[in-house]
């Protein structure tokens, strides 16, 4: 079930980008970034760059998503209530 939700949200993210609903895409992107690990977002960005033909220009979408993922990775421990020494389930 959680994997199904991830697949559906990634699918809608792709659909939003293709349909130029950038606000919706940004919301889904941010939600996924902080809800899950976010690796898939970078892979999705690579696929999008390939769809738009990145071999002829700089893969801007991939670079942007990698930077956002890195930023999210740094921010997650501060956003999660990580002050308590409790186990967290990954």
């Amino acid at each position, binding site marked *: 079930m959680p994997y199904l939700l991830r697949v559906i949200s990634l*699918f809608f993210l*792709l659909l939003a980008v293709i349909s130029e609903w950038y606000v919706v895409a940004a919301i889904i992107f941010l939600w996924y970034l902080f809800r899950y690990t976010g690796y898939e977002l*970078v892979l999705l960005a690579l696929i999008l760059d*390939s769809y738009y033909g990145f071999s002829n220009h700089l*893969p801007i979408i991939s670079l942007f998503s990698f930077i956002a993922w890195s930023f999210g990775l740094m921010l997650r421990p501060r956003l999660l209530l990580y002050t308590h020494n409790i*186990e967290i389930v990954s």
Partner: protein
Amino acid sequence: MKKYSSITKASFRRSTTRRWQFGFLTTLAILMVGWLIPSVISFFSYIIMAPVVAISSWYEYSEATLPQYLRSRASLTDEIQQLKEESVNQTGTQLSIRRLLEENMQLRAATLTSTSSKRIVARVIAQPTKLNYDLLQIDQGTESGVVVGAPVFLGVDTVIGVVVNAAPTYAFVDLLTTAGFNATAYIVGPNVFASLEGVGGGVARVRVPQGIDLRVGNLVLLPSVSSGVYGEIVSLENVATQPEQYGYVTPPLPLKGILYVSVGRDIPPPHSESQINEAVRQAVRGYFKLDNVPESKTATSTKNEQINKQSSD
């Protein structure tokens, strides 16, 4: 079974660095593969993007009902909003035009009256809703020749009040409908003289004894000031056990609609009984004469008919 990883703050710091390194290397590797062998990435991209592109194309180009509805709904909603705004603007414009037309007609009537009978045309600058009593404030005063006691007319000969206070540049007009204002009126129909008293709020009433056939629609004249019609009876109060009955009269225009008035230059002189009777007789006879009938259609223009007959022969 859940996979637990007891991550404390200290160990998470190391794990973040490891995760970042892993992500960076993976991304770099895929990018290198993509640059060196683009067909590999393209193949995977084609498989993953095919359903997405299919749905996107269906939404944008399909002639089916649902995508058409979804596409056109947004534009129709915008169009509805735009049309609503246009309609509101047009209604406002129409109201403004109507008001201006009405004001123009009143001004024309007042100007015609002032040139023919030497009255002073004045604009109403405050009305009973802004003033406490049935008063009008006009923009002409003693500098223009307005005197206290002068009658104030609406149109040609409909008196509506009298000047009670005149300053150099403005004046106050007491309306006939002011509470306590008394005048003598002539009621057409029963053909009797009656006392007209103001009730306030733009309403006056005539008081006649029981037995007189007073009806809604009877015209009320004020022969002491002019020979014109003041108004008509719009409502009756008739209690059989009371000795008197009342007919309520309102001015021809609502008070808020009075924009221009004309003020007589002199205080009207007192009239004798015969003068009043004559004025009433003239006013009543005047209703049967139409002013806008063309001459050629009247029975008195035989000369024109003869000329027309000759020319046709």
